[in-house]
C-alpha cells in the first residue's frame, strides 16, 4: 500500500446488518402481518389442545361412561358421548398429540431428505441430477394417499411405517422446490469461486448453498406440515396409524360417522379442530411466503419503500 492513499471507511449506518432472506427476518416479518398472526394463533390453539389436553383433568378417554350417542348435558360431558358411550371431550383432548407428533416428525424428515436430494441434484448435475429428479417425477405422478395406502397395506399398519410413508410422499415435493431454487444459487459466481479452490462438494453445499436456501426451505416446510397433518389424519380415519381404542382425531371421525345425525359432536369436534389446524398452518406458511418473496405476486419491494426503510 502506498503511504498517501488512506483506506476507505464505510459510511456510518444506524441500522444493524439486515440479512435479506434469513429465517429470522421472514419469521419476524410474518409475525408482523395480520395474516401471520391469525395463522399462528389458530395453529397454537390446536397445538395447545393437543399437547396440554392430556394433562387437563377429564374422564378417561377409553372408559365407557354413558349411553352411546348422547348429546351434551345430562351428565354426558361437555360434548356428549361417542358410538361406544365414551366421553367425546376426553377423547378430543387425548387424541391430538400423537397425530401432531407424527406429522411433525415426518415433515422434518421429508424436508431434510427432499432438501438434500434437490440440492445435490442441482449441484452435481449430469447423471446424479437425472437419477434423482426422474425418481422424483415418478413419485410425484402417484397420488399421495394411494402411495401411502399401498405401502401401509403391503407391509402392515405400523406407526413407524406411517411416518416413513408420509415422509416418502412429501420428500419429492420438497426436492422439486429445492432443486429449482438451488439451480439458481449453484450458477452464482460465489459458488463457482469456492468450487474452483477445490473445496469438496459436501462443504460447498453446506457452507455456501444451503444458507442461501433457508427462505424457500422455511416456506416449503410450513406448507408440507399442513399437508402431513391432513394426510395422517386421513390415514387414521382409514384405520392406519393410531389403532382403536386409543383416541385420535382421525379415528374419532371414523368411529362416530354413523351417528352424525343423532350425536354430531363426535364427528364435528375432531373435524373442526383438524380444519382449524390445517387452515392455521397454511395461512402461516402463506404469510412466510409473502414476506420471503415480497408481496402478492412475488414483486420486488418498490424503490421508494426500500429508500424509506433505509432512512428510518
Amino acid at each position: 500500500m502506498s503511504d498517501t492513499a488512506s483506506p476507505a471507511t464505510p459510511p456510518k449506518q444506524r441500522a444493524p446488518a439486515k440479512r435479506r432472506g434469513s429465517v429470522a427476518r421472514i419469521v419476524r416479518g410474518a409475525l408482523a402481518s395480520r395474516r401471520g398472526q391469525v395463522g399462528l394463533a389458530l395453529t397454537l390453539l390446536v397445538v395447545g389442545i393437543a399437547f396440554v389436553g392430556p394433562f387437563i383433568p377429564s374422564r378417561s378417554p377409553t372408559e365407557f361412561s354413558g349411553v352411546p350417542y348422547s348429546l351434551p348435558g345430562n351428565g354426558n360431558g361437555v360434548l356428549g358421548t361417542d358410538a361406544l358411550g365414551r366421553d367425546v371431550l376426553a377423547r378430543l383432548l387425548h387424541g391430538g398429540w400423537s397425530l401432531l407428533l407424527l406429522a411433525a416428525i415426518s415433515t422434518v424428515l421429508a424436508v431434510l431428505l427432499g432438501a438434500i436430494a434437490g440440492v445435490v441434484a442441482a449441484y452435481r448435475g449430469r447423471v446424479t441430477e437425472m437419477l434423482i429428479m426422474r425418481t422424483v417425477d415418478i413419485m410425484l405422478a402417484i397420488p399421495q394417499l394411494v402411495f401411502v395406502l399401498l405401502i401401509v397395506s403391503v407391509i402392515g399398519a405400523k406407526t413407524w411405517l406411517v411416518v416413513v410413508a408420509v415422509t416418502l410422499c412429501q420428500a419429492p415435493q420438497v426436492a422439486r422446490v429445492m432443486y429449482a431454487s438451488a439451480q439458481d444459487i449453484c450458477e452464482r459466481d460465489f459458488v463457482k469461486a469456492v468450487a474452483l479452490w477445490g473445496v469438496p462438494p459436501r462443504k460447498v453445499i453446506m457452507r455456501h448453498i444451503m444458507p442461501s436456501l433457508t427462505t424457500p426451505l422455511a416456506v416449503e416446510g410450513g406448507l408440507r406440515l399442513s399437508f402431513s397433518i391432513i394426510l395422517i389424519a386421513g390415514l387414521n380415519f382409514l384405520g392406519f396409524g393410531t389403532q382403536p381404542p386409543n383416541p385420535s382425531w382421525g379415528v374419532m371421525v371414523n368411529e362416530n360417522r354413523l351417528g352424525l345425525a343423532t350425536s354430531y359432536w363426535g364427528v364435528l369436534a375432531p373435524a373442526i379442530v383438524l380444519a382449524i389446524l390445517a387452515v392455521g398452518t397454511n395461512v402461516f406458511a402463506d404469510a412466510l411466503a409473502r414476506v420471503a418473496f415480497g408481496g402478492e405476486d412475488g414483486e420486488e419491494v418498490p424503490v421508494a419503500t426500500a429508500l424509506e426503510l433505509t432512512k428510518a
Partner: protein
Amino acid sequence: MTDLPELATLARETAPPAREGLVVEGLTVVTEVRGTPVVEDISFRVAPGQVLGLVGESGSGKSTVGVALLGLARKGLRIAAGRVCIGGVDILELRGKDLQGARGRLVAYVPQDPASGLNPALRVGRQLREAIIIHGDSLENETVDQRVTQLMEEVGLPATDTFLNSYPHQMSGGQQQRVGIAMAFSCRPRVIVLDEPTTGLDVTTQRRVLETVRQMTVEHDVTSVYVSHDLAVVAQLADQTAVLYAGRLVEHAATEAIFRGARHPYAVGLLKAVPSSARSEILVGIEGRPPRPGRWPQGCSFAERCGSVQDECRDELPALRDLGNVQPHWVRCRFPEPPVSVDQAKQPVPVLSRDVDAVLVVRNLAARYGPLDVLRNVSFDVKAGRCTAVVGQSGSGKTTLARSLVGLHTDWTGDVELSGVKLSSDPQRRSKEHRRTLQYVFQNPYGSLDPRMTVRQNLEEPLRHFFGLSRSERDRKVNEILQTVALSTEYAERLPQQLSGGERQRVAVGRALIVDPEVMVCDEITSALDVSVQALLVEQLRQMQSDRGLSMVFITHNLAVVRSIAQDVVVLSDGVIVEHGPVDQVLDHPAHEYTQRLLADLPSTE
C-alpha cells in the same frame, strides 16, 4: 466535437418560441411515500438540432431525469414539481389522452436495453407501423410504408420485406438498437430521450449508433437528451454536457468547455479518472460514494469526497452559478477549480521492463462449446510481475480463454504451463498448489461474494481451505489484505450487500490475493464499475504489481484501460489472436486491420 453549440440557445433568457427546443425548469422527483427528493431542481434548455449529454455515475438520478422528461416516474417515485416544456407545451401538465398523444409525437424514448424496448412476439415492421398509425397526423403526404422505408434508410438498415418481417431476436444488438431509434423518430417527435442506448454494444456498433443519433438529430431538427455514464461517448456526441451528482446538476456547459476545463471538483475528478487510449497515465479515482436520497447533507453533496473542501461548503447548498465569459458555464460550487485541462495534471505510468521470465505460458490453446470452435491456436506468455491484457469484442472468445485457464471451462486442448508445470484442463486433476497460485476474479462484483457471509468470512474461506490457519493468524491476514485493497477494518463485519459495487470488487480482488497467488486472471473486473471507482481499482492493481510482483491476465473490451494497466496485449477476434505484443507498440502502431478499427471506433474525451 463536430461543431460548437449555438450561443444564443444556451443562454437562459427566453428564446423565441419557434427555436425553443426543450425547456426544463425546477424538475423535482420524490419518493411516493415520504416525499424524499431523489432528483432536485433540474433546469436546462436545449435547442433543436442539439444533443445534451446527461452524465452521472450510478445512482446520480440521470435515468430518473431522463424518464421524467416523458412525464414518467419509476414505481415508487413521483414527479413533485417543475416544468418540462416542448414547444410551449408542458408535458407534466398533460393528462390522459393528451399525454398519450404527446408521447411519441412530442417526446420519444430509446431504452438502454434494445431487446426490452421491442415486443419479442411482433415483427419489427409491424411495430414500426403501429406507432406511425396511432400518430397518423405525423405523416406528411406519404404513406405509412413510405415513412417506414425512409426511417430504415435513415438508421442504415435494409428496408426489405425480409428484414421488416423478422422478429427482434433474429437481429443483432446493434440492429435492435437502431430499430429502437427508428421507432423513436418514427412520428417525428421534437425531443428524444436516449437512456444509455449503447451500453451493451461493442465499440464499432456503438460508433454507428452514435453517428445515427447525431445525424437524425441534425436532419430532423430534434432535441436529443443522451443519458450516459460514459464520458467519452458524451464528449464525442453532445453539444452540451450536464453533470449530475446525487440528484442535482453540478455543472452544465458546452461540451468543449467541460472537457477542456471543468470547474466543479466532481467533474474534474471524473475526468481525471477516465483512462486515455493514447497515453499510459496514472488514474485518479474518487474515494467514497455519493449520499443516498434521504441522507443528503445540508451543504454541498460532494463535500464528503471533495479534495478542496472548505468549512463553508458544509453549511449551505451552493447555488448553480454562471461562471462563463462568453458562453454560460453553470457550476454548483463555491470554490470552483481553475478552468484548465486535466490532461496537464495527469502523470505517466512508470515503464516496467519487459525483459523478465514468463510465469504463464499458453501454447496452441483451442476451446470448444459443443460443436462450436470458440478459440483456435491461442499462444501467448504472461511475464512475471507484468500484466497481459486480452482484448476483443463480445463473442471474440476472451472470456472463454479466461475460464479455460482457471478451470471453469474444461473443453479445451493445448499446453498451458504455470511456473513450468503443465495445467490440466480438468480442474479436478489440478494440484492444490495450482489452484492456489492461479486465482480468478469474476466480472460481476454483485455475484462473486457469498451474500450470507460477512466480508471477513468471505476472505477467510480461501485461507481455511488452503492453509487452515489459527483464528488469530486468519484475522491478521484478513486485516492485512483489507489494507492492501484500501478498505478500513470496519468493513470486515459488513455483509456484501452493504457495500457498493466498487467496494465489493475490492473485496473480491482481496479474496483472490489473500492466498498469495502468482497469476491473477481478471475477467472484465472493472466493466460493472463507475469510472471513478474503476480508476481506484486499476491503481490498486498497479500497486500490487509493483509491491508483490503479481502477474495478471486482464480480460477487457476497454482499450483505454489496457493502456493504463497492461504491459503486453493480446487482441482476439473470432477466437484467433490477430495481434500480440507490447501495449505501446500495438496501440500506437496497430498492424492488423481489426485493431486499427477498434482504435478508430473508440470514443475519446480528447
